[in-house]
């Protein structure tokens, strides 16, 4: 069978670093090709070249035998390549219909034909089986729905090949499930699909072929039916990844550090919990269950309606009423949106790491440059930042490394309590393992840890105790021994836990 889309010997360098190095991929009609690799392996760059958004240094993109001109988004779309972006690329204040037909709305002498536009949009939504008001503005939609609108847009262009870049990053398991079966249906009708994901199980459920990239180079192309997840991961990482799933910590929690009683806030309905020194408490549940709201209310980052939070450090108990008082009392917080909340992307690594540690590193208001450098240097090595160049801007690092910088920032303060919200979302396998190691190390050194995660294996690996949150209340608490994926999921989804 002939390839529908073929990328031949694509090379692209950014400032001397080869992001994509002589990579060739091809996909046949109805085939689902997975492209996997660690963050920074060049997957997204390759896809942006295919979609004509990025200009390759050399190589060609061929659709049905014809070479597509370089960096011409319009030409690529017309040729039948449609990209669903990783960073959502919808226009917030335009309607669903307008977004689906962005740049390709039907017109008569330049004037948009609204009715026809809506018909096309409706058809595309029906094709992917999603129902939504066409006149609603994107800014009013949930993240999951935006993702589906994005896919509808790609589908509306009647593409020969549909490229999806991490489409499930912000979806709940149920939504992910739906998405995967929907893609399968599209492929069954002859559409080619290129699927980029960190989530290896999804790749194995959906894809026919998997292309593995590492450091911009193509490592191998494997038939999914004839390989194993471990093999794929090993090739992605390029080293045997230690399976530390079994290396459970022997936790011996100390005194109660965090005590939250009767917390009520937006999306949180009367929750009480405690975290002890050296203990890792996990908050499981579906996206939107109220976990982020809960931790933010606890640490005072968002207003609470009711409830009292105290933090006990060195025998002294302090009431936490605002985020400022929380930080002063010794709370570290690694937020969900690290890009917007956790890091100053234009500041250097050193500046970011020392941000919450200003007082210790300055004398009568003046910052001590050398002290700052050794401090930042030490921390960036401890978290395994690669490369550990503390003078580089944080924004130049990949997602996993950015997350390490955020953790390093709080590590330096030796916090009494650290709150981590989705600490490894969008982070590659290698960095994930290192972040897990860091979190455990923190707990071993006596820090109380509160971690929110939608990644079940992560939760099971890290947490000593898991509280499952649904609709703003805790629906169940599982010890490390009791917890397994099935129990957490059924509590999260609202089903009874059957006795094992």
């Amino acid at each position: 069978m002939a390839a529908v889309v073929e990328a031949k010997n694509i090379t692209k360098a950014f400032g001397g670093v080869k992001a994509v190095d002589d990579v060739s991929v091809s996909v046949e009609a109805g085939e689902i090709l997975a492209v996997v690799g660690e963050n920074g392996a060049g997957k997204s760059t390759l896809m942006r070249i295919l979609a004509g958004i990025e200009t390759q240094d050399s190589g060609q993109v061929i659709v049905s035998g014809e070479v597509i001109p370089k960096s011409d988004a319009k030409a690529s779309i017309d040729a039948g390549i449609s990209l669903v972006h990783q960073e959502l690329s919808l226009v917030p204040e335009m309607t669903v219909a307008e977004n689906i037909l962005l740049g390709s709305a039907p017109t008569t002498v330049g004037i948009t034909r609204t009715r026809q536009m809506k018909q096309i949009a409706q058809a595309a939504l029906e094709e992917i089986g999603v129902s939504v008001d066409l006149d609603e503005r994107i800014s009013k939609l949930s993240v999951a729905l935006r993702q589906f609108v994005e896919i509808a847009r790609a589908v509306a262009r009647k593409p020969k090949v549909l490229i999806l870049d991490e489409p499930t990053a912000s979806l709940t398991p149920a939504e992910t499930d739906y998405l995967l079966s929907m893609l399968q249906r599209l492929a069954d009708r002859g559409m080619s699909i290129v699927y980029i994901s960190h989530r290896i199980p999804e790749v194995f459920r959906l894809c026919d072929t998997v292309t593995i990239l590492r450091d911009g180079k193509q490592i191998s192309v494997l038939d999914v039916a004839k390989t194993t997840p471990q093999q794929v991961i090993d090739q992605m990482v390029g080293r045997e990844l230690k399976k530390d799933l079994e290396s459970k910590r022997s936790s011996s929690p100390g005194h109660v550090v965090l005590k939250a009683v009767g917390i009520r806030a937006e999306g949180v309905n009367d929750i009480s919990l405690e975290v002890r020194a050296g203990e890792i408490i996990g908050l499981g549940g579906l996206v939107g269950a109220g976990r982020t709201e809960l931790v933010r209310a606890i640490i005072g980052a968002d207003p609470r309606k009711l409830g009292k939070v105290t933090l006990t450090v060195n025998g002294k108990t302090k009431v936490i009423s605002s985020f400022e008082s929380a930080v002063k009392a010794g709370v570290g917080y690694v937020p969900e949106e690290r890009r917007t909340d956790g890091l100053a992307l234009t500041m250097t690594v050193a500046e970011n790491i020392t941000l919450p540690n200003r007082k210790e590193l300055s004398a009568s208001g003046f910052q001590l440059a050398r002290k700052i450098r050794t401090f930042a240097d030490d921390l960036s090595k401890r978290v395994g930042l690669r490369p550990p160049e503390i003078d580089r801007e944080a924004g130049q690092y990949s997602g996993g490394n950015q997350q390490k910088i955020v953790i390093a920032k709080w590590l330096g303060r030796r916090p009494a309590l650290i709150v981590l919200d989705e600490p490894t979302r969008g982070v590659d396998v290698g960095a994930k393992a290192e972040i897990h190691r860091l979190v455990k190390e923190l707990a071993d050194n006596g820090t109380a840890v509160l971690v929110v995660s939608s990644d079940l294996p992560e939760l099971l690996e890290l947490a000593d105790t898991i509280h499952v949150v649904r609709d703003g209340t805790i629906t169940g608490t599982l010890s490390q021994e009791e917890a397994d994926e099935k129990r957490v999921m059924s509590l999260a989804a609202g089903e009874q836990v059957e006795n094992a």
Partner: protein
Amino acid sequence: MTETIQLGGAKETGFFPRLRTIIGRRTEGRGVILLLVILAVLAFTQPLVFTALPVTIGRIALIGIVALGLTAVILMGELDLSVASTLAASGVVVAIIPDLRIAIPAALLMGIVVGIINAFFIAIVGIASFIASLGMLFALSGLAFVLSNEVPVSIANQDAGLAFGQPLFGPVTPRILLFFLVFIAIQLFVTKVKAGREFFAVGGNRQAAYDSGIPVKRRIFTGFIISGFVSALAGVIYTLELTVATPTAGSTVLLASFAAAIIGGNYLKGGRGSIIGTLIGASSLGVLQVALFLSGVQVPVQNTLIGAILLIAVITDPSSLRAISARVRATLPDRTKVEAQ
């Protein structure tokens, strides 16, 4: 298709729910409330505003026309600070060319050229629009002084100018007529024409616009040309009505036009807003200014009031409101009670 997923709210079907959804989608809410409050207060305190309606509308047109062109640029998340000096320079051009049949097209052409130069620096060279148009502001106000030899220039055909200030029919002067034509043209452009609708995409999510194959640079050119052209048109109107071109013309226009756009709900970072909003903003400002003038309120007090309204317009933006309320609550002493301890 056997299976669908219902993720968002379904389309409302009843009349009132439907109406509520439609209103909920508009961005002009604050402008409308402001206008209604002003009109309600004035109905009691300054009924003259209504009896002198033609004058009031003329005032709105004066503030609004530049704001309309400016809105096209603001929708794309760009700024055009050169509008006022474009107005001054094109006004001088009208006055120094004796034959109005040549002078007016020349002035309008100048506006288009100004737009093209602005857009060139912003879209092609890649300078921030604030800086590019600031440069243009100085360049053009310098040009206005040079062309006018630093003194007010009277137009050769004084009678044509005076006639231009007279109503065409009813209370409608050419200024008011042109204002409404410009309003309708830009309104249709950004709501019905594909290129105009795409201004929202360029402002709301520029990367998405690029990725969808929208010619972003061409849109930026279009926007600045609209802004330049409309400013030049305003310059022509100003000069003809005054019968004199002053190189300092429009000194109060820049801030007033931005104020009208902001009060009308246009988001300065782009992607959100409407031409109708600007019309409402200009109306609020115009009516307010007429009323304050008639009350003899001192200009500094007027400016303070307009500044306060601007601030209110900005802080009542839903996202700003949320941030403010969270911050206020965070700074207040901890009043949380423990219910069950």
